[in-house]
């Protein structure tokens, strides 16, 4: 049987680097570089750096 084609985009998890456990889920093209952005973390009530979590083996 032919393998099912991988989708062009993937959902990724951007975790707050304030180590609060807060995260945002975003969608990016599979071939794109990992996402990272400044976003608001409601736990510490500040804009902090969010980095994409390494994927695989959840």
């Amino acid at each position, binding site marked *: 049987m032919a393998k099912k084609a991988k989708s062009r985009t993937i959902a990724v998890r951007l975790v707050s680097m304030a180590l609060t456990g807060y995260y945002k889920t975003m969608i990016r093209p599979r071939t794109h*570089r990992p996402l*990272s952005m400044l976003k608001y973390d409601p736990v510490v009530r500040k804009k902090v750096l969010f980095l994409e979590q390494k994927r695989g083996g959840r």
Partner: protein
Amino acid sequence: MFPRHYIKLAEGLPPRLTRFFARYPPQAILPPKEQEAAAQAPSPFKPHKHPVTGKWHNPVFSLRRQAELVKLARQHGVEELLPHTVKGTEERIRRRVENGLRVKGTGVGQRVKGKESERMLKARLEKRRQAMLEMPKMIQTWKERGHGRGWKKWPK
């Protein structure tokens, strides 16, 4: 006989207490001759073994009535004249210190275990605080490395 202030004290007591003290006179106020005999008499607040049959008999006063007597005596300030009882204030305080409330771990020198999250709370907040102190530096390097283009350390 008895000094005057003892008589005056006894007149101020409720009949229930005076009856008790008449039947079981406290050692502290007895003349020295009778003290020995009183010391050997069994406490009405304790179970006692019959000297002849060797059988155990219940205390003359039940725990409920002991507690009532203690309460009454405490109100009139003569609690130390009662024989030793587990319902006494001293004993109660000792037990409270030893055991605390009914909750396990509230006695002296004990700790309440708490939930896992409650025990880890301090460490978690400390970790977060450290991360927030590092944040401006981290954002600075992130901006310098092309907003993540050269970033190597991605979180697991």
